[in-house]
């Protein structure tokens, strides 16, 4: 019998944040998501638009016979639409179901120790921070650690904090 064990999602606060992260760029800023959530990285392919869906749902693609939905993270975070076509889809596992996330480009895999993570500061009511596990600082670079499950299972995110905001703190 083959069963796929799906780890139950822990809340951001009780989750251990140290570990390996895949980092990627979105509108010039670097984000990171836990490598354990990542299934694979694929090139952009023809996306079938699905009518009557929110603007951040780009549509669906055929991933080796499976239909998976593609979420445009720029649109989801309320960022400017990309000027050049995105190149990469990161396929992540959310509640046991694969989903595609459209990003500008993938950067690297980094190990982040618990000591490298800072709590997300509050930015006021307009800026949502629920979707962040924290701020990772490694080798002088700042990355926003995303709680990807939360990002993808919530309807709308008004605005994400930008690294520029963080650095002005």
């Amino acid at each position, binding site marked *: 019998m083959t069963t796929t064990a799906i780890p139950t999602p822990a809340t951001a606060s009780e989750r251990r944040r140290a570990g390996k992260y895949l980092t990627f760029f979105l509108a010039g800023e670097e984000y990171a998501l836990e490598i354990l959530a990542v299934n694979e990285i694929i090139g952009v392919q023809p996306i079938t638009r699905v009518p009557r869906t929110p603007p951040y*749902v780009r549509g669906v693609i055929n991933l080796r*016979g499976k239909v998976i939905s593609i979420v445009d993270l720029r649109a989801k975070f309320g960022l400017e639409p990309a000027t050049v076509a995105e190149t990469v889809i990161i396929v992540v596992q959310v509640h046991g179901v694969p989903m595609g996330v459209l990003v500008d480009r993938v950067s690297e895999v980094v190990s982040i120790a618990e000591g490298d993570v800072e709590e997300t500061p509050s930015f006021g009511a307009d800026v949502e921070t629920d979707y962040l596990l924290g701020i990772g600082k490694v080798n002088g670079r700042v990355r926003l650690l995303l709680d990807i499950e939360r990002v993808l299972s919530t309807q709308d995110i008004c605005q994400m904090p930008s690294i520029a905001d963080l650095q002005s703190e």
Partner: protein
Amino acid sequence: MRLMQVEPGDMESIARAREALEQISMHASLSAAARETLAAAALAMRDATHDAETLNRIIADASRAIEAAMRGTLEDAVRATSVQASERRSPSNRASLPHAVRQPQRDEPLPADADRTLLRDFVTEAREFADEAQAALLALESDPDDADAVNTVFRAFHTIKGTAAFLGLDRIKVLAHHAESLLERIRKGAAQCAGVHADLALRSVDLLRALLDAVDAGLDGAPVRLPDGYDVLLEQLAAPETATAGRALSDGVAGPRRDDAREMPSAAAREMPSSGSRPRTPERDAKNTVRVRTDRLDRLIDLVGELVIAQSMLAQDEAMRAGGHHGLSRIIAHAGKLTRELHDLSMSLRMVPLKGTFLKLARQVRDLGQKTGKQVELVVDGAETEIDRHMVDAIADPLMHMVRNAVDHGIESPAEREALGKPRTGVIRVSASHAGGSVVVELSDDGRGLDRERITRKAMDAGLIAPDHALTEREAFELIFAPGFSTAQAVTDVSGRGVGLDVVRRNIEALRGRVDIESAPGQGTRFLLRLPLTLAVTDGMLIRVGAERYIVPTAHIQMSFRPERGMLSTVVGRGELVMLRGELLPVVRLHRLFGVEGAVTDPTAALLMIVGDSQRRTALLVDELLGQQQVVAKPLGSGIDAVPGISGGAILGDGRVGLILDVGAVVTIARHTPTTEHATHVSRSVA
């Protein structure tokens, strides 16, 4: 016959003993029960984790069974193993069976040493036996002298008893034992399978199911709950003549005689003369079947579906179409043929006959007849019609609901029927057949039919339609599918709570099927369910709207044509109608509904596709038909909530995803937008 003693590590002797047991268990001279007992013992020995003591006990049990069987006393064979088993599990239960369970604990865990795989297999198998027993019992109601049916029930309980004893499931064993004793008396002619006895036997089946459910839940870690009424039923089984529950109340006679049977509400299923004159006792065809886990089967079918798509992508590849590769094309064409065959075969693996569902209906009709004091007979035809396993599960509830409605609202009371010059016993017919790639299930009754007046009045009271609103017959019948509608005069235990046919329609439409209704006052009502053979593969028409492609299930398409200017009319600037053979139909512009850019907006340069069922037809404006295609329907993936108008996605020949149109929803959307309300209004005034 003597079997050896074995040492714990002596795998060879164990294997030899097991082989011997297996061989003996296949010996034809033994009775079925003895063979089953031995086979169970052999199976248990396969589990290598037993210690020597357990093994020897299994062997001892088995040899006792063999000895007993050789003496020809079958009963003893099973009892030998059952008593052994109960002593082993709970020494206190050593006393005679009924007393041993007088004071059972309500909840108890499964035996700690229970083999879970064996238990699971047992639950599955015992459920099948329960179904068979119930079918046979219902057959017995119409023909109490059917010895085959009595034997089937007896055998079912007998086998369950043996295995349950072996597995240490004492409650099931005790129940099965008592039920078996009851059947034994019927078998020997000491009692008739009618009235109290039939009722007790059926209730035993129900309780057995409840016990099995409890074991099933126990396997998932829940405590094994003792179903209500266990003790009571055991007592009644021990002394059936004094039982006063169930139908015995309505009879007022204990130990009914043959001539009483005619007077009682009877609801036995009988086959139509065309498909056999006698109720057939279900036969187990164990030798030629293999049990496969359904998830593996589903995975297989998924993979084959993907193979079909991969194959068609290969065949349509540019390099192939350019020509010049004759040898290769031939091979690919051959592979394509094999793939299609494989696909057909794999689909057929998941097909199951509707029989099981229909049998449940028979039981329901029987019980409802008793509850409502009506005499109803269920006539079943085409129970061997096969349909996808998932569909069987999905249509069971809607069918039950419709049967419940038919008994409660449709069929009149015996007195009423007599006064109308109808036979006292009402007939509900359920039949299934294949027709053009779909399965048609028809459910009709010979009751009072739909009362148009009453439906209209009721709908006005409920505020569903405006007062003084004249309805056509079709529109009136359509109302019974409206949410919150019920014509039952009293809210009864059976129906009339207003949760009803709207759910049925929704369920059937979710299966990409449809419901039609016909009714004549005083003559009855007929529901026609048209369902796809399988949910996995849809026959679809690929259409183009702008640069986008959609799949419309072929079952919903009535026709397509390019309209002429004169057929079209516009209402209040927005609502569009097309006049087709004297009927005005609302036009839905798919490009507008789905926000597609670059589509043809002039209907006379595009196509109108008439979709829907006979009662709710709508014209869809599409650019072009691209051709027919079988598609494997898949969910759209997470993050996309139910999209109105889209039922799923499918991988097309070029590897891209195409969206499957949910015709029912599109028609509903079209009818609920203000433009089409104008349209219906106009259509009425024109008509």
